[in-house]
């Protein structure tokens, strides 16, 4: 990397971290550049990859692509305040399709699949699971049921029901703790990567 590029990258890196001290002109400058550059990057990417790559190249091969183009044009009607309301048609189309798609995809992959995985012989096939496996099976089953009870909206969390809901939230908390602990490691690696850039690539202080 040439000197200018190195200094530029270092300038931006330090500029972003200066925000940790407080908001300052350096950060504001980096932020302004970042917003401009990334918005432009997405304009370019969406134009070439989506509009050109997905539509323009194939426009005479696949008639159905024109539905997308028509929706896009409807969307652009926003630019003309008088007929801007027509863009709602495109929005309605997208929202409808999203709802339909997500509804069935989540239904099969989350509900059906998860329920299926939860239904299993707790003591193993042929009653021969190890003690650890039996314990694990029971804990998973109890945790799942209790977690579902927590999300129940139709009943006040009182009595036995409330107790189960409480067990459910405890399971949820363990889940969150596990994801937190898990994420920390990856995040720290990112910072180390940046510091390595500063002190190794840029300043040459470390090997």
């Amino acid at each position, binding site marked *: 990397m040439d000197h200018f590029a190195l200094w*530029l*990258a*270092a300038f931006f*890196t330090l500029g972003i971290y200066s925000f940790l001290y407080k908001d300052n002109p350096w950060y504001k400058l980096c*932020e*302004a550049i*970042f917003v*401009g550059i990334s918005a432009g*990057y997405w*304009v*370019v*990417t*969406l134009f*070439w990859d*989506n509009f050109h790559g997905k*539509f323009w190249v194939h426009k005479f091969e696949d008639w*159905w692509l024109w*539905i997308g183009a028509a*929706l896009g044009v409807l969307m*652009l009607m926003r*630019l003309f305040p008088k007929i801007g309301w027509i863009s*709602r*048609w495109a*929005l*309605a189309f*997208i*929202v*409808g*399709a999203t*709802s*339909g*798609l*997500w*509804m*069935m995809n*989540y239904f099969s992959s989350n*509900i059906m699949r998860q*329920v299926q995985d939860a239904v299993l012989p707790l003591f193993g096939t042929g009653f021969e699971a190890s003690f650890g496996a039996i314990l*694990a099976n029971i*804990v*998973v089953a109890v*945790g*799942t049921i209790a*977690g*579902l009870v927590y*999300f129940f909206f139709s009943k006040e969390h009182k009595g036995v029901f409330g107790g189960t809901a409480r067990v*459910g939230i405890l*399971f949820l*908390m*363990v889940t969150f703790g*596990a994801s*937190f*602990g*898990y994420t*920390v*490691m990856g*995040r*720290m690696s990112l*910072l180390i*990567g940046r510091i390595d850039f500063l002190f190794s690539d840029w300043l040459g202080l470390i090997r």
Partner: protein
Amino acid sequence: MRRAVPLVITTIVGATFVIRYFIPHYPFNRLNDWFSDWFAIVAACAIVLGALNLMRISIQKVVRGKPAWGYSLVTIVAFLLITIVGLAAGREYRGPDTAFSWLYNNTYSPLSSSMFAILAFFVASASYRAFRARNLEATLLLLAAFFVMLGRVPVGYVLSSFMPDGYRLTDLAVWIMNVPNTAGQRAIMIGIALGIVSTSVRVIVGIERTYLGGD
């Protein structure tokens, strides 16, 4: 026209996309792929609106000489620079030696990596400030995080190396991930899916129409 037509569109399109799940026959089997293409095309058109909005606000700030208008000017210049360079470069704008790639590698990339990595600082400050064993719930969250964190670095291995194989911190971390975590994830996933199903039903049936706005 303004209110009724969109509702009808949502209902018809939504129902079609539900039904396509059960019909393997053409053209229903293609709807999924088509929609992703359509959405890509619409998003490409819509970003014109977004970009114009960004430019309009920035230009207004500069023209009216609002405080910190200089930064808006920088945004405008940066935006125009990369857009022009990228659009002029043609389809192969991502190629290794283009000006677009240079800009990407030396501005976009360090900025985005640095912003991503700023998370490490916040993880530490949140650990110091917010992760408190206030009650049983919070305590469990903490303990789970604690053991998973310890179990995933060599330090954790060293700390518990006196224990027999299968009972070390590493194994505890794996157990937490595999057992209680699975139960919690499963309950959350089923709940979320039901939430999505019911939200979708409301949208398709036409009870939910906030996103369409008023008249």
